[in-house]
């Protein structure tokens, strides 16, 4: 389709007299960008889209880039905290019968490590990357529902603070990251520790769900004119599928944690077999979320890989359609696998076989993706830079993790190694190989866009090799010690078992791996302060985020691009086709149709507001209070209602009215 088609009469929405029909105040029109020179356009848009100055201004920001930056930094801090947990555990385990840490603290350590990594690092950081990139990649000026997005960040931060303050008070959950009943139930989990687990889940899931809905609507309704479904970048597809998985998976864990807190707090018996409940129900509900969770972390990473590889292979991705279909297939299949986490619970045999088969089935779309990536590299002229190095590291690591995964999908083997270090090794290969390595590659790849400066390539290579060696040294031997029978979640082991040397080696690897992140952090700071200026498009990549300056202005694009190709910047090298006619004195953006992305409405995007923060405080306070008394829900309702009314009540800006 050529861009001329877009302006043809057939494609334009039918004439409508929307503004003159019915009881409407006639629209106050403002200046448009049509024919405006670049300097005045910039002046207008910068004033309209800016985040107000001052503390209150900063706290009111609804700019997706500002929120995403906060998310990224916060999630990185949580990664460091979770990593410190791990290092402390590894020091304790580096030799037999070390007395550094007792069992009670150790229980809190591995639980905090697990929940921090899963709920405060992995999911938020992939969503945050999407909050930053998706609006830029689809060529719009802000995420859909910008205030909801701001709200989600504040709720996420309160959840993280809540968990870590509890840890500082020795009140952290100590029941493992999945908090099985009856251990976490009212009978065996006295005190507030399991309640902290349950409510920190509620905070983080509210936040993820909000981001997922905002992302879906951004992708479906705010794409630049002409970006029909077949021209959506693969990374955006990955985030779209992930967001759908979030929408259908996360409610399960909220239901689980709510049921748990009801059992603990008001004496319901949902998980209590003595009174007609059932403990396995907890596991079903949890893993109905828990398995898709792995894909919530992994799918965006595949999207990053699909963005990085074409840029460095210097050709569009091989098998674009195949890659999209695999993403969708993985999204669906991820819901058919949860029971493989419960093979050791004695399920009916036929059921178990079904879940073994579907666990192996998911290897097919994943295989298709890997094949398409390799073909892209094979056919291209690959330029090896740090982002691509991490992608290669991802291939290597993830394939090992996938292999042990297929092994674990067979019930007899799973029964043998269940709850041993073999499983710990497997899921770190999948999580770190499948998600952290692509994320690191993505950090090097998009850092120039976010900061306007390059990270050091030399330090990047050091970082890569340190991470690869440290990671494999730490986690590969865990397979072996797991097969020897070392159980997970033990704070020590006797010397006679002969596990001392290998554990010392593992711990050394873990420290090395941790140091690689210190080097990474240094490279980030160094790059932000001293890095070479990046320019708009340092990698000469083809998607829209590279069409604007680095870092992008508050309004993202001076004019909304008109898209005719999956790699728009490669298709039109001299000049980017753009749309004109938007108002510049109000936050206008284009709403387009779902499939074809025909421009349909000039919609106003929300202005900055402090109310999302106040609403998050009201909601967060209610959650916190609710671990002490169920009446919190009643007392919290009033402040929540007030802040929500403040949020939605129009203030008379042009953005509120039309």
């Amino acid at each position, binding site marked *: 389709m050529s861009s001329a088609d*877009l*302006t043809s009469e057939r494609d*334009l*929405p039918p004439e*409508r007299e*929307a*503004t003159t*029909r*019915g*009881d*409407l105040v006639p629209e106050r029109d403002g200046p448009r960008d*049509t024919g405006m020179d670049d300097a005045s356009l910039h002046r207008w848009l910068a004033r309209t889209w800016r985040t107000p100055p001052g503390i209150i201004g900063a706290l009111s920001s609804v700019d997706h880039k500002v929120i995403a930056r906060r998310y990224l930094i916060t999630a990185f801090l949580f990664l460091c905290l979770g990593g410190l947990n791990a290092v402390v555990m590894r020091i304790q385990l580096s030799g037999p019968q070390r007395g550094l840490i007792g069992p009670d603290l150790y229980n809190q350590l591995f639980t905090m490590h697990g929940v921090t990594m899963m709920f405060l690092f992995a999911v938020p950081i992939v969503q945050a990357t999407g909050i930053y990139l998706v609006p830029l990649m689809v060529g719009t000026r802000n995420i*859909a*529902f910008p205030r*909801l997005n701001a709200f989600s960040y504040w709720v996420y931060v309160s959840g993280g603070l809540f968990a870590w303050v509890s840890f500082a008070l020795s009140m952290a959950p100590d029941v493992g990251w999945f908090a099985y009943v009856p251990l976490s139930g009212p009978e065996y989990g006295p005190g507030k520790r399991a309640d902290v687990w349950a409510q920190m889940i509620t905070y983080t899931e509210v936040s993820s*769900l909000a981001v997922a*809905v905002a992302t*879906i*609507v951004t992708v479906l309704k705010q794409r630049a004119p002409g970006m029909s479904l077949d021209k959506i970048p693969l990374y955006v597809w990955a985030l779209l599928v992930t967001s759908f998985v979030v*929408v*259908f998976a*996360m*409610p*399960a864990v*909220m*239901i689980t944690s709510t*049921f748990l807190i009801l059992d603990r707090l*008001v*004496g*319901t*018996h*949902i998980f*209590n077999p003595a*009174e*007609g*409940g*059932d403990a396995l*129900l907890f596991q079903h*509900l949890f893993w109905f979320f828990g398995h898709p969770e792995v894909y919530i972390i992994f799918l965006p990473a595949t999207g990053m890989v699909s963005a990085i590889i074409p840029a460095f292979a210097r050709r569009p991705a091989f098998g674009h359609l195949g890659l999209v279909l695999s993403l969708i297939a993985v999204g669906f299949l991820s819901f058919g696998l949860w029971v493989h986490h419960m093979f050791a619970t004695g399920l009916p045999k036929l059921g178990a076989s079904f879940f073994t088969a579907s666990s192996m089935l998911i290897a097919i779309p994943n295989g298709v993706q890997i094949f398409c990536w390799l073909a892209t590299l094979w056919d291209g002229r690959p330029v090896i830079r740090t982002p691509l190095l991490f992608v290669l590291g991802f291939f290597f690591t993830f394939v090992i993790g996938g292999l042990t995964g297929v092994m674990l999908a067979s019930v007899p083997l799973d029964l043998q190694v269940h709850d041993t270090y073999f499983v710990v090794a497997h899921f770190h290969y999948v999580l770190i190989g499948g998600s952290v390595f692509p994320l690191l590659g993505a950090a090097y790849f998009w850092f120039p866009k976010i900061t306007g400066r390059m990270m050091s390539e030399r330090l990047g290579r050091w970082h890569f090799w340190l991470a690869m060696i440290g990671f494999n040294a730490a986690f590969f031997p865990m397979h072996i010690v797991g097969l020897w029978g070392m159980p997970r979640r033990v704070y020590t082991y006797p010397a006679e078992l002969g596990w001392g040397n290998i554990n010392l080696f593992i711990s050394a690897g873990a420290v090395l791996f941790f140091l690689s992140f210190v080097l990474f952090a240094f490279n980030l700071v160094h790059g932000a302060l001293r890095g070479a200026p990046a320019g708009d498009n340092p990698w000469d990549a083809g998607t829209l985020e590279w*069409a604007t300056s680095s870092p992008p202005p508050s309004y993202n694009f001076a004019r909304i691009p*008109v898209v005719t190709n999956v790699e728009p910047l490669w298709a039109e090298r*001299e*000049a*980017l*086709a*753009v*749309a*004109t*006619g*938007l108002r510049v004195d109000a936050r206008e953006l284009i*709403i387009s149709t779902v499939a074809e992305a025909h*421009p*349909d*409405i*000039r*919609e106003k995007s929300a202005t900055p507001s402090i109310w999302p923060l106040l609403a998050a405080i009201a909601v967060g306070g209610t959650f916190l209070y609710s671990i002490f008394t169920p009446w919190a829900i009643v007392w919290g309702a009033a402040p929540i209602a007030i802040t929500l*009314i403040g949020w939605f009540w129009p203030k008379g800006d042009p953005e*509120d*009215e*039309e």
Partner: protein
Amino acid sequence: MNQRPALDISDLPTFGHGPRSPTWWGTLGFMALEGTGFALAAGAYLYLATLWPNWRLSAPEPNHWPGTIVTLLLIVSLVPNHILNGYAKQCAIGPVRIGMVVMSLLGIAPLIVRWFEFPALNIYWDTNAYGSMLWVLLGLHSTHLITDVGDTIVLTVLMFTRHGYSGRRFGDVGDNVFYWDFVVLTWIPIYLLIYWVPRLG
């Protein structure tokens, strides 16, 4: 990067109803996730019901009448709800104001009856798991009912201010209509589950 104007969108309208508007899609997204929550809670109920052969665990039968009245009220409310939707599409402020007042009242009415529904379950949440699940299901739906009625009342007030005369507000009314349909529709399976499914076997 250089730019080349290729498309003029200055004549596009500034708001749209239904699936044309992003808010409609956002509402649909929230319905999808809340609907999943409902489905999982119902699934948990059925899971326990099939697990225990003597389900209802020798508890007394609930009195279905308050629940049945709520059901009838909710179904009846769908009619003015959709009439209201038509007026919102025409951006007719007078009828929309009346419609919003009617819908606020039709939201409050089932809430009042709902108050009597809890004791009519004839069991407490902490008696056994059957009682727990009934209270959970009814509580889950009541939360939706309360929030949507609150939302409707605020929007009604808003429609009586000068902010009411805007396309965006009429769009909000349309989305409110849409969400009310969801609140009514999710009630039907829960109603059957609480009052009628245990009588089957």
